[in-house]
């Protein structure tokens, strides 16, 4: 039996490979779609064609999705180069971001809930 961590590493390697394949296809056909999204589409296709079983990649997928926040952290540090902008407009930017996010979340949640209830009534 292969040790669990080696198995997970292999799964991770497959996911990275699909990402790489997505990037290559995107470049080859000049598509404006990010590599990760093409990789996601390819993997969904493989899953739908039953060429890959979801259990094969489950652990690796869980690691990547579960630790996604770590991958975001360095992106947040980009503000280091925008000191003057942050001092000048930081509060206003924060207000815009927060208020807009609030509106998006409320409108999305209520729309989906309304559609869900309409659907439930139809079913009943």
């Amino acid at each position, binding site marked *: 039996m292969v040790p669990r961590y080696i198995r997970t590493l292999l799964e991770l390697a497959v*996911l*990275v490979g699909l*990402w790489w394949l*997505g*990037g290559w296809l995107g470049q080859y056909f000049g598509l*404006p779609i*990010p*590599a*990760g*999204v093409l*990789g*996601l*589409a390819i*993997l*969904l296709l493989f*899953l*739908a064609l039953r060429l890959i079983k*979801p259990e094969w*990649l*489950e652990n690796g*997928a869980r690691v*990547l*999705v579960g630790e*996604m*926040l*770590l*991958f*975001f*952290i*360095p*992106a*947040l*540090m*980009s*503000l*280091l180069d*925008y000191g003057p*902008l942050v001092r000048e*407009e930081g509060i206003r*930017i*924060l207000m*815009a*971001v*927060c*208020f*807009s*996010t609030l509106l*998006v*979340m*409320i*409108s*999305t*949640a*209520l*729309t*989906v*809930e309304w*559609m*869900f209830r309409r*659907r439930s009534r139809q079913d009943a």
Partner: protein
Amino acid sequence: MLDLSGVFWLALTLGGYVLSRKIYKRIKWYVLAPIVFVPTILYLIAIPTDTSYAQYSHYTGWLISLLGPATVAFAVPIWQQRRLLVRYWRALLAGIVVGSFVSVFSSWALAHLLALDAPVTLSLLPRSITTPFAMPMSKDLGGVPELTAAFVLITGVFGAVVGSLLLRFLPLRSALARGAMFGVGAHGAGTSRAYEVGIEEGTVAGLTMVLTGLFNLLGAQLLIWVL
């Protein structure tokens, strides 16, 4: 040659992440969550030492690249929850469309109201979509991808925090609406938070996060093509 300060930043980022994740598992206080705690520590050290982003990202930049494989990985939970998607695609699509429009228009309107300058405004527009989509889109629009990445993050963190409050006030009976709220409004950080609410919420959040990115990408391409 080995860049010692680069090693330091990488060690601090990874170490801080592992540590704060352990603490956050015990003390569910969002200030201690990795996405809030680690950047705070990093900034507290980086600002007094006058560290530039180039110095910081020398050995940590590859972490951002892992968002690519992470996006691929979403295929697995999406596939496993395909029944949910087939059954409720209309509701989810409606949420994604409404959320995306509200996001772009409210960002634009608020930026004008608050008199933010043009590059900042343009960098704000793709804010509600997940980083791998948002950064190239910001560039296409004439924004600054690095700024967008930071705005995306702030959106995610704020959305994750405020989402728990909204759950108390909004009359949401379905896991579908709770998940979509986090996924469309607060992408990655929101999705992590949604998984804490429930498996179904998390799955819906991950799904809507990716689909929102796709929808915005197609929308932007269409717009460029029409104009």
